[in-house]
């Protein structure tokens, strides 16, 4: 029912982050939490709307029952609240940390939306702390074998749901640790790896097998009654410039992977920003993660290039509530950079137009160029605006363009023009007993969307397996 006047009494307050100067010294979790009383007050701001945009298609892709668990949380019914949360959200400890929280932007309180993401995180962490989150081992097994290829958010979500429906699930992961981008893509300070591992352990205890360091093999997959492919969209967008192979030029994911590997193994990173002038191409979340990682590794300077113009600080007329606001957001990495240098690392309407290397094919600088929007809406270079920017580490965070070629070949999959393995009928079914889900199916997207898509695919697979249509 919500607290009728909560939104009038309490102002929005987000989880604070640790101070920049402190957190820059390590790779530990950024977030601090609010006192419980304040958490309850924050939850009491939820108005339990008759039409909750937050959980609609404008908001949460998982259709999290936000008004329900906010109401329970406000009244101190944490355990009940958590059970409502877990009804739709399999991994709140992930989304509670990395989700951009579309729900908060679609909240009827508009700019002052309820802190759903922080509330969610509080609930799940409270659940773990109080021992409420225990393995849910299905009481009956159907005898059906399901393979899930890929252990990113989509794969884990599909595996979880199918396991709960009593099927025996094997997750096949080519990396040495499960989690996909959540393990090696997202830096530890944003999503601590023990959090990912905690979930994997729980899933193992619930009966899911993880086959690591294993490439999916069509012959092997034939043994399964159903196969869910969640291989992601890991082909990075290239800059298509000469010298892309130069030393010191890396795709962001590779860089971030190395950073996390080094953190987990205690060894030095294979690629390090230490003492280097870092240029990051791409102004998105991954770019920001690169900025933050580079700063922690002791970069001499960090510049982040963004092709698009600097967004407005308030919503533009064509971008009304409850759509996602295309407004200026300054994320933790950028804030850290500002705290160190006093200025925003981002340069807008600019991209790299050339890579300059030395005789050892090592990058020493990049040529940048200004971009301008044409009347058709394309961003085109402004001739004569080229500049040289010293750089010995160029990180490319320009997004992903679909499933890797090799995966497509191995599994004999057909991708569409955008690299997606997307069944034409809009379902997840690839014919026979195979299904696709997550970024593989939808193209690069958010963790929360991948989870939603993994669950949707699992529902279809379950119906297929149990003959329930």
């Amino acid at each position, binding site marked *: 029912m919500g607290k009728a006047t909560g939104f009038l009494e309490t102002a929005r307050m987000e989880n604070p982050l640790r101070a920049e100067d402190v957190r820059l010294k390590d790779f530990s979790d950024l977030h601090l939490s609010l006192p419980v009383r304040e958490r309850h007050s924050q939850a009491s701001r939820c108005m339990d709307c008759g039409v*909750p945009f937050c959980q609609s298609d404008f908001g949460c892709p998982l*259709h999290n029952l936000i008004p*329900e668990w906010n109401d329970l949380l406000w009244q101190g019914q944490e355990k009940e609240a958590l*059970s409502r949360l877990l009804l739709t959200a399999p991994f709140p400890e992930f989304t509670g940390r990395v989700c951009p929280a579309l729900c908060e932007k679609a909240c009827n309180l508009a700019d002052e939306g309820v802190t759903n993401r922080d509330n969610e995180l509080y609930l799940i962490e409270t659940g773990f702390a109080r021992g409420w989150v225990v393995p849910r081992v299905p009481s009956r097994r159907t005898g059906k074998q399901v393979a899930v290829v890929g252990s990113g958010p989509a794969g884990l979500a599909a595996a979880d749901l199918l396991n709960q429906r009593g099927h025996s699930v094997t997750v096949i992961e080519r990396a040495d640790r499960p989690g996909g981008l959540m393990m090696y893509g997202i830096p530890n300070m944003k999503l601590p790896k023990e959090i990912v591992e905690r979930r994997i352990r729980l899933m193992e205890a619930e009966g899911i097998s993880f086959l690591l360091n294993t490439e999916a093999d069509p012959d092997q997959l034939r043994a399964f009654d159903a196969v869910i492919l969640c291989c992601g969209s890991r082909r990075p967008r290239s800059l298509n410039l000469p010298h892309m192979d130069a030393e010191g030029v890396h795709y962001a994911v590779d860089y971030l992977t190395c950073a996390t590997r080094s953190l987990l193994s205690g060894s030095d990173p294979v690629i390090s920003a230490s003492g280097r002038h870092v240029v990051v191409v791409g102004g998105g979340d991954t770019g920001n993660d690169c900025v933050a990682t580079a700063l922690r590794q002791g970069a001499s300077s960090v510049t982040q290039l963004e092709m698009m113009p600097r967004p407005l600080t308030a919503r533009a007329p064509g971008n*009304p509530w409850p759509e996602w606001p295309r407004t200026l957001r300054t994320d933790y990495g950028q804030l850290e950079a500002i705290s160190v240098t006093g200025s925003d690392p981002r340069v807008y309407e600019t991209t790299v137009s050339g890579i300059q290397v030395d005789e050892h094919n090592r990058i020493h600088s990049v040529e940048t160029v200004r971009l301008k929007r044409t009347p058709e809406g394309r961003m085109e270079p402004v001739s004569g605006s080229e500049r040289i920017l010293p750089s010995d580490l160029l990180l490319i965070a320009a997004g992903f363009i679909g499933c890797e070629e090799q995966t497509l070949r191995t599994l004999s999959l057909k991708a569409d023009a955008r690299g997606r393995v997307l069944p034409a009928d809009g379902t997840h079914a690839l014919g026979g007993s195979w299904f696709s889900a997550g970024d593989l199916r939808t193209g690069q997207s958010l963790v929360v969307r991948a989870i939603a898509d993994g669950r949707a695919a699992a529902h279809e697979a379950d119906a297929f397996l149990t003959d329930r249509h």
Partner: protein
Amino acid sequence: MVDRQYPLYHQELEHESCGVGAIVDLTGKATHRTVDQALSIVERLAHRAGSDALGTTGDGVGIMTNLPHALFLSWATEEGLVLGNPGEYGVGMFFLPEDEVGVRNICRIFEQLAGAEQLPVIGWRDVPCHPALLGAGARRTMPRIRQCFIRRPSDTPAGEAFDRRLYLLRRIFEKQDTDTYICSLSSRTIVYKGMMLVTQLRAFYDDLQDVRYVSRMAMVHSRFSTNTFPSWSKAHPQRMLLHNGEINTIRGNHDRMKAREETMRSPVMGEDMRRVLPVVQEGGSDSQMLDNAMEFLYMNGFPLPLTGMILLPEPWQGSPEKTPWRDLYRYYASMMEPWDGPAAILYSDGDRVCASLDRNGLRPLRCAMTDDRRLILSSEAGVLFEENAHIIRRWKLKSGDVLEADLHSGELLESRALKTRFAKAHPYTQWMQHLIRLDDLPRETVTPASPDDDVRLQLCRAFGYTWEDLHHVLLPMARNGSEPIVSMGADEPLAALSRTHPPLSDYFKQRFAQVTNPPIDALREEMKTDCSIYIGDDGNLLSDGPDNCTVLELTSPVLTEEELARIRNLRHSAFQVRTISLLYGKEKSLAQALSTFFSACDAACREGVNILILSDRGVDPSHLAIPSLLAVSALEQHLIHIKKRTAVSVILESGEPRDVHQLALLIGYGARAVNPYLAHDCVRSLCAKGEVEKSASDAIRAYNAALTAGVLKIASKMGVSTLQAYQSAQLFEAIGLDGKMVERYFTNTPYSLGGTDLNRVEADSRFHHEAAFCLPVTGLPAVGVHKLRTGEGAQEHLYAPETIHLLQQAVWNDSRDLFERYADRVEHEGPRTIRSMLDFRFEACHEIPLEEVESEASIVTRFRTGAMSYGSISQEAHECMAMAMNHLGGRSNSGEGGELPSRYRTDLNSAIKQVASGRFGVTREYLLSAQEIQIKMAQGAKPGEGGHLPGAKVTESVAKTRCSTPGISLISPPPHHDIYSIEDLAELIYDLQCANDQAKITVKLVSSTGVGTIASGVAKAGAGGILISGGEGGTGAAPMSSVHHAGLPWEIGLAEAHQVLCRNRLRQKVTLETDGKLMTGHDVMVALLLGAEQFGFATAPLITMGCRMMRVCHLGTCPFGIATQNPELRARFRGKPEYVERFMLFIAGQMRRIMARLGARTVDELVGRSDLLRMKQDAALDLSDLIGFSRNTHFQPDARHDFHLAERTDIRLFQDHVHLTTTDRAFGTMLRGSRSVQAQGCGGQSFGAFLPEGQQITLYGVANDYLGKGLSGGTIAVCPPVDSVWREEDTLIGNVALYGATSGYALIAGMAGERFAVRNSGAWAVVEGVGDHGCEYMTGGRVCVLGPVGDNFAAGMSGGIAWVLDEHSTLRSHLNAGHVQIVPVAPAQAGELRRLLIMHEKATGSRKAREILTNFETWLPCFRAVISEEYMTFLKGV
């Protein structure tokens, strides 16, 4: 019975009401004067009768008298027949089919049957009459009218015994021939009646004018039917009675009487009794069925007045007085339920005339005694004005009263004497020892079988519980003991169109009273209600004895587990209890399960079991349960079929029922009591989790109390005040259920559109079972029936997030493109509605160029915004809509909260002013500011219910607008207290037309099956327009079950209204409007083609002003500044008139394009053209009845009702002295200027209604109901007539005086009827005694009562002060202390009181006032002030 030509017309849903009268000569002398005067009474009650559209055919009128022996003798002598003396022959009055051969045949058959019964026929007489006088409709259907004379056999004594044999003969004949109707067949009474105007009766029958026609008594009746279709037989009197009112529980009464036939044994009629059966004839009107039952009891030896007492019992349960006849009532209650509903009945066997009034006193019956011992009974006092000077006593019947005038002894026996006499007939109190109360049974120890959380969750899932059920329904009920309140109406699809596997209960809609009978306020008039339930064998009604009341009495139909255990373990020779399982194996079908279930019940019945406990405990992975509602109703029908219904009581132990609606259905379809064990278990678990901070037993008590109160409220919506009568009354209608299934398992329930059959019911039940037992259950599903949810399994809503967004963006950015996307989404992606399943038959039309179509600007003048009161919404929002509609030339609606006078005659004025049951701010000036005055009979979200605006929301400005007091809560009563019946509505329409003769008077109804006949009645009552509002309508606050389970979609009601109005040739007299979530041009075009010509929008304009369906209107926390009075939130209002205007223009634009394709240039030419609609291919329901009638008839200004206002006395008033009669209604309302008028005679209804400041009228004589209605500053004084004997206790004015008065003075030097000063919010009044419910819902003003007060005084009185002269300290026992307390008159107010008394004495010459004033200080301590806590606080603040 379906009439193919008018597929939506339902004959069985007709209503009627009327005026009644009787004259009894207690000297026992038969005179023609008695007959003549009785006819005069009915002629002067013309305004209470109805006629057809042409005004030439009346709805029916009739008279019952003794046999006019002299007249018959002279006829017999002429014919050469020997009649014998009075008492030696009986006369039958026959309506025969009008064809010579048929008549001869029928007469021969009758003679044969009579012969077989040893009742020789003396001869036949063609009754002389004048068909040429009649209207065409009456003439067309006129029967052949003959009288049959039958000789009394010598072995049969005269009188009752002879009449009993005639009764038997009539019943035998009736079962043979259904085309002939016998008006009466008796040796003591005869009925002359017909379908005519009141003035035609006398002229039509020569006999009635013959001076030889003499009688000791005469009873008359004029009928106002909601239908003008001919029916001679339905005119009153019936065989024994005539009735003003309506029996609401008739279905259950009928069914139970039928069931009782098996167990009844007649000591009086013996085996002959069987030959009479069935007691109640199918197909009759409610009055006819009541008459059947009364006649049956009488013929089986019941004294006549006792039959009235049994059928219409007084509210003995709630009576504060321990009367000696209480156990008599309880004794009969254990066998027979009340026939509940408004009723003033007069009944006679020829030797005595009796009168009874219903338990709520909802119909007027005024009595007078003359100095020559002639008793005059009538709906209105003073109607026989020529007797005025001879009257020595005037009184009125009160609720539950009975009266007997005995023509043999010449005695007049009144209620107390009669009841005392009957109470002494048997040792009822002793007999009552046999009645067992549940509380008397030994307590059982039950360990609540509390399953663990997982099992409970699984069970909940299996029974289809949702999270909403648990948290938005159960939780608030357990917390607060009352049903949850919600806002903004319903926008989910019908159950049959929903993808959410809804429970069977969702297919049923609660029926509710509108116009033809009033809903009851079960809260404020609790004393008239009764939740008792009786379990066990009904006994033999016809034979008195203690065994009859060996039943178990419950005080509520909701049982705890422990209480159920007490019944289950009952050890008593009279009770055999058996539990029958509702479970069936997964492998079986539901149909098989039902038949196994019936067999088990049959076997139990054969073994003498008389309490069946149906239980669905034990649902598990392999066992499903028969849906509880299906089981209960199917068994009820089965038991009726095998005539075991009264021998067996059914109790349900089920996990399924959880909300009020489900409980009401179970009771309404036959369960005597229900133990909702799973709901109880959920409440226990909520307590354990701390979500309800109460002990489990307290929480369950609160939950059960909420259920009981909720069921009673649902019953009271239909005007039913006892659960015993509600039981099995089937006051529901089904929508979207397969007709065959309804007829088989829910027999006699009205249904529409076909749809879901037993297979789908079973599939839905299996869906839930599977979800519970085949899938992991981690929580209850979030379906979002009221508050929307998205995601898997969620309910669809019309106002989905995308829809709201697109609509707002379209009107805010003035984008027709976005509006098209919005409309497209509503039509193609939104939930299915009836209208979305209809499409236009463009292929049958020639498209015309768009320019030729009526302009948008012209179309929008037909548009209205919905009635939303200032108070429920903010000033900003209210004015925004008014401004928009004024710009467009459409009309905005003030709602029921009044309007600030500063807005009148400006851009901000609402063209439509609403008059609702609360009458807030309804002043003369308010009415004069209107172009249209809308009487709100019901509202879509909660038809049949009142409202309650908490004091906190009554801000300074809201209070000013509503003519009330800041901080004082405002209650809208469920009924209009001046509309209990159709002729009352006619009166209000007339009153309002007098108050503003330029305005159009319209009536707002809510869609339901039968609304067409009501609409016809409304049209006949003179309304200029009718609004059929959809049941989905939104509102600020309404109980959750009402929002979703009462009222039908507008499509059905609108189509029915158009069809039935056309059928009755009334359509052109009225404009027809509809509303209810109209969202697109498509929607409006469907409405147009189904018969509407004006269209209302409410939710959509709110959305354009920023509303996003928060559904918190009832909390006043609207974050968009719309439904709030909080200044901080109001500052957030972003609405603009142009947004609303754009919406209207966009809709009109879409309409034009459709019109062009349909080849229509004007809206008018499309009204009712349903032939241009077709069902879409994938339509899931059968809509052919909706579109199966096409007629382009619409409002024609010259067909408007003529009120003959120019002929009114107050218009033609040239002097300040005037003589009045009862036909001078609303006297003074049209007075001009500032005047002081003295009147003599008798004030008709609504004397001084809406009298403005500057007017003073003084009446010397009696007045009738509704005196000073809406008094707006004027002064009314009423003093006893000067020309006759007057006793202090005589009744001077009628019921419901000063209803909704806002200011002015009313000085009444005598007794008033019921509900004096009801909803008074500002008038000051003195009266010298009041009936029941005085000062009900009063919110302001002062009322001084110088005499006795009736029961339930000050119920719901939140403001103002009542000073009562409490000489005998009886006030406390009559007080309803819910809101008020009794305190001494405060010194500050003593002066006020004195000044008021001085004024009273001066205006009326009151002796009582003079006496008090001569020694005021001594009298002052005898006065008590009745005042509410809130008002005291307010006065202190001032």
